[in-house]
């Protein structure tokens, strides 16, 4: 029998989620940042699974290599005359008004950028072939440079890959890991494509050896076992592909969170959600609408300032977390974040920091348990927080007033982030359910919902391990794309068939059968942005309609062109039919463990404290209340009403 286990590496814990008699179960072990695979194997050892073990992994190795700029030394090969394009980028500066912004460091230093005299035209015509002598010169120079990996991206390689394939073949002889643009991202816009290929080469050696080692460990421990990896688009890929195309794993964990939030919300009966994941230094928000095809995919993501064009879930990050620092500026205005105390020195209440943070504010207002933070790994020092906050409060009357202000300001930042993914993209938050997870999500969700007029908050079961839940429930997916730049009525059958054949062949290597979904990116001729739509007889009409809905106008007279064709090959995960508890109307009294004074909007209220694990389906009660669980707590403000559903979710009706 097959046993699927999802393991997601986090900053403090590595979460292991699996199905136990139809129910999601979680095991948390401490993460081992020096070798994240150790925690994975530790967790497996504790779980003692049997049968054909399939380990599905959410990894941070690629992201961390980018964040810490500790990737490989990469050589970049492109068309002669364009070696610097990888550094020039889009010629815009990240900060408008900062004369002292740092000089951006290109992932490839100037001396490792190489040009090959060759050229393909926009129509795919070969204008100049690759010269043998020129190629040998470049190969020799790269061999002598001592790099760890090579990235190749020639102009218009997606339109005609002949030159690029020839260059790649010659470079292969060097025995170095090789990332080639027409294989990784055969799409136009040379900078974004090259940047994606370079990022792949940059994280490649690290991720490759990590995955290989972990896959070996899994195979040793479970002879019939195998390793799979979550990719940024929300689909699973095999360990083999993850090692070859690690650029697809940049948002491995966060993608799990989105899929987990979406799948659990749908099971609870909610099809349109805003995911709200608040952690220590930042908040990730996303919007998923089942009526418009589920999770939104972006092909224009930036990872640590570097464009990465492979499909990723559209996740927006704001610099607002538990560790965000509060301080007054020279004009007397209170700022909270984006500067964060991180885990070192951390918030004041962790024992070392001296600058007030959001976590300190939550603590002094009575909203946190002093002994359960991060699953009890950190004990919080309330007196220390109050004393330093008293010194920092300037002219404010009390620490509580200061703390209330900090929360209001940080909640305004989070509100802004949600507006970006909803209102600014043409969605009305009032039509959505806010799904709160991460350590801090449930603390702030109701206040945020009220500000955005979101009628309902859902705190799913296991909010602290939702990424692993999503990874467990995700489909296996492989995405292929190619820029064709053709008229809307062009015959694309051949292009689609070629991509599908490639996909089926790759799936078969991993023993999988998949269903292919065709789509195209269209635009009015001359526009700069494309819209993605399923490919069928109605595509062009659907394009006009979507353009009208999203941008407010359409022009059926205007020529439409197909920029990219896409194939998404999906092997669906086994359906998850969770066990539903029988619903018995109750008031949650059995889970009531005490009361405490808590501040709500500056007013101190005696607040009931509940233990989530002791609640039952059908329990319904109103705030003010705090519902605590391992590694998180839900704040229920006065007036809001929570009900526990048959799946163990907290469903909160928010009253405006």
């Amino acid at each position, binding site marked *: 029998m097959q046993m699927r286990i999802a393991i997601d590496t986090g900053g403090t814990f590595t979460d292991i989620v699996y199905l136990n008699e139809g129910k999601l179960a979680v095991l948390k072990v401490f993460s081992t940042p020096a070798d994240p695979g150790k925690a994975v194997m530790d967790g497996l050892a504790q779980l003692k699974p049997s049968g054909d073990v399939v380990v599905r992994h959410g990894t941070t190795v690629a992201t961390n290599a980018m964040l810490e700029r500790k990737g490989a030394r990469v050589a970049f090969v492109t068309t002669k*005359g*364009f*070696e*610097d*394009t990888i*550094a*020039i980028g*889009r*010629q*815009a*500066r990240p*900060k*408008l*008004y*900062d*004369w*002292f912004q*740092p*000089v*951006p460091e290109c992932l490839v230093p100037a001396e490792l950028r190489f040009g090959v005299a060759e050229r393909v*035209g*926009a129509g795919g015509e070969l204008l100049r072939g690759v010269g043998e002598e020129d190629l040998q010169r470049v190969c020799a120079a790269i061999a002598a440079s001592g790099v760890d990996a090579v990235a190749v991206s020639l*102009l218009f390689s997606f339109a005609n890959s002949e030159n690029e394939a020839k260059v790649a073949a010659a470079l292969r002889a060097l025995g170095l890991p090789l990332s080639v643009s027409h294989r990784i991202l055969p799409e*136009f*816009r*040379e*900078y974004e494509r090259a940047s994606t290929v370079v990022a792949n080469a940059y994280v490649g050696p690290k991720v490759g050896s990590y995955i290989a080692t972990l896959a070996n460990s899994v195979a040793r421990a479970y002879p019939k076992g195998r390793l799979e990896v979550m990719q940024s688009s929300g689909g699973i890929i095999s360990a083999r592909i993850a090692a070859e195309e690690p650029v697809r794993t940049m948002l491995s964990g966060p993608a799990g969170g989105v899929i987990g939030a979406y799948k659990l919300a749908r099971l609870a009966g909610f099809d349109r959600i805003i995911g709200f994941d608040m952690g220590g230094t930042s908040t990730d928000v996303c919007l998923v609408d089942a009526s418009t095809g589920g999770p939104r995919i972006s092909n224009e993501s930036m990872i640590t300032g570097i464009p990465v064009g492979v499909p990723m879930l559209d996740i927006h990050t704001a610099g607002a977390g538990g560790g965000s620092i509060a301080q*007054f*500026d*020279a*004009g*007397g*205005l*209170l*700022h909270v974040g984006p500067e964060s105390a991180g885990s070192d020195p951390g918030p004041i209440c962790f024992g070392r920091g001296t600058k007030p943070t959001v976590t300190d504010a939550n603590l002094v207002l009575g909203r946190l348990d002093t002994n359960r933070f991060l699953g009890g790994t950190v004990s919080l020092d309330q007196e220390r927080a109050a004393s330093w906050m008293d010194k920092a409060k*300037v*002219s*404010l*009357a009390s620490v509580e*007033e200061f703390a209330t*202000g900090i929360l*209001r*300001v940080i909640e*305004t930042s989070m509100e*802004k982030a949600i*507006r*970006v993914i909803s*209102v*600014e993209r*043409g969605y009305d938050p009032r039509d959505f359910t806010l799904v709160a997870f991460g350590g801090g999500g449930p603390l702030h969700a109701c206040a945020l919902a009220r500000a955005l007029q979101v009628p309902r908050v859902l705190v799913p079961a296991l909010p602290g391990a939702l990424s692993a839940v999503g990874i467990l429930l995700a489909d296996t997916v492989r995405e292929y794309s190619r820029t064709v730049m053709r008229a809307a009525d062009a015959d694309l059958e051949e292009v689609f068939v070629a991509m599908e054949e490639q996909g089926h062949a790759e799936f078969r290597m991993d023993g999988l059968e998949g269903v292919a979904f065709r789509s195209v990116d269209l635009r009015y001729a*001359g*526009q*700069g*942005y494309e819209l993605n739509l399923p490919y069928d007889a109605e595509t062009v009409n659907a394009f006009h309609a979507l353009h009208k809905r*999203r*941008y*407010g*106008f359409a*022009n059926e007279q205007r020529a439409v062109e197909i920029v990219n064709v896409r194939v998404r090959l999906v092997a669906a995960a086994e359906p998850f039919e969770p066990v539903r508890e029988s619903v018995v109307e109750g008031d949650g009294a059995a889970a009531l463990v005490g009361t405490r004074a808590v501040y709500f909007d*500056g007013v101190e209220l005696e607040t009931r404290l509940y233990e989530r694990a002791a609640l039952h389906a059908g329990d319904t009660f109103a705030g003010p209340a705090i519902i605590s669980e391992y590694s998180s707590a839900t704040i229920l403000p006065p007036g809001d009403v929570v009900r526990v559903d048959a799946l163990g979710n907290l469903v909160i009706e928010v009253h405006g």
Partner: protein
Amino acid sequence: MTEAAQNAIELAIFQSSVHSIAEEMGAALRRTAISPNIKERRDYSCALFDRQQRVIAMGDHMPVHLGSMQLSVEAAVARLALKDGDIAILNDPYAGGTHLPDITMVLPIFVEGEGAPSFYAATRAHHADVGGMFAGSMGTAREICQEGIRIPPVHLMHEGEMNQAVLDLILHNVRTPEEREGDLSAQIGSCRVGERRMKELVAKHGLTKLTTLSTELLAYSERLMRAELRKLPAGTFAAEDFMDSDGITDEPIRIAVAIALDPESGAASIDFRGTSPQVAGSINAVYAITYSACFYVFRCLLSDEAPATAGLMQPIAVTAPAGSFVNAQMPAAVAGGNVEASQRIVDVLLRALSKAAPQRVPAASYGTMSNLTIGGLDTRVGRPFTYYETTAGGMGARPGLDGISGIHCHMTNSLNTPIEALEYAYPFRVRSYAYRSGSGGAGEFVGGDGLVREIELLDDAQVTLLADRRRFHPYGLAGGAGGAVGATQLEHADGSVETLAGKCSIHAKRGDVVRLETPGGGGWGVPSARAKSTAR
């Protein structure tokens, strides 16, 4: 809550809310506009104003619009009696505008029971064509009437109804009316977003409280700026710099400034007396541009989070003599004032400030947007085309940091067009796009390098260049060398090479290659100091 808390917290939330409204207006505009100039290059701005037409929030959009938007709102209010449901439109540089392609709309926000507008929402967008003698409306004209249609403040919407006569008049005077109509609709939509969201805020907090908070926000911004000005030394600091020419005569154009700093009261006055008179060519700056450049420079002295409100300029007085190059009067042509003069005004201001606070000011950046327009018939498809793009250069070195190479600085931040997108859209083949090695000025900290771009024309075409810094180098500071000046060549198919002037319009042949080299940034500190530090 105490009054102090009111100030620190309510204000923080209010500031964040109004800024988010301005950003949302920008997102709506970008989403619904048609032309690449708005969607891709993002040449637009959105802002909110209080009842006295003082800017209280501006999105992080185009620096060249900082400050000058307020003059548009003031002009609209002065000329028109705006009622609920009205929208004013204008682009006249001599009545609240900057240059003709920038069309501004102003919407008065009426709160129920109030006789006068309580707030204003405004959007400005650079339109790809507003008529005139050159496609793109950015050519080498000699008077404003050649540059396109002039729109004084007039009603585009009247109590909720479109003023069709005005719209028709505008659309009949531009080359691409369909695109213009789409972009204008997008601007109306964007203003409405501002109106709706401000009304939501009023419903939530009440008008009295919002009015108080608006005034508080301006006072807070003023405190921020005064606190900063108190850190600068007392005295008057003067500087000058030159533009090569106006493209018609070879006469250099002098821009002179004296910045008087008064740390005691936290104030500054900026005086451009001594600047050359306005010129015949199209690069004159109207006062709005000069004011924006001053706003930009002093705003950069503050931290990144400082809100761009009218309060920041409260302690700062700007004097620009009427009829001078920095306060041009009718009928001067001004299309290039926005893109070229604005950058030089910043250079001059920075040079003066560097004498007051040498450790806080970068050396001169590339100082010209190298506006390149190429138009002709694309024989691949049998249709006319017009290509317009600006090319970045080197950033000036900073005390403690090298300059950045190939990046847009100061008054613009527009993106480049990808080479592959360019070759799909136009009959061009790009031959190279690279850093212009060694063009950054030497110094302890070196200036950023400029860029080189070579475009081969696959069809005959008209090539128009509006560029500067061909004679006067971007200056270095504290002993650093100047950045290299820019250059443009036309290489003919037979191998002969023709040097092009910074401002010119020529007929080029199929097979010709335009080679554009943009200036580098100035260096900072004596070069020998760098040599020593590398030797160590």
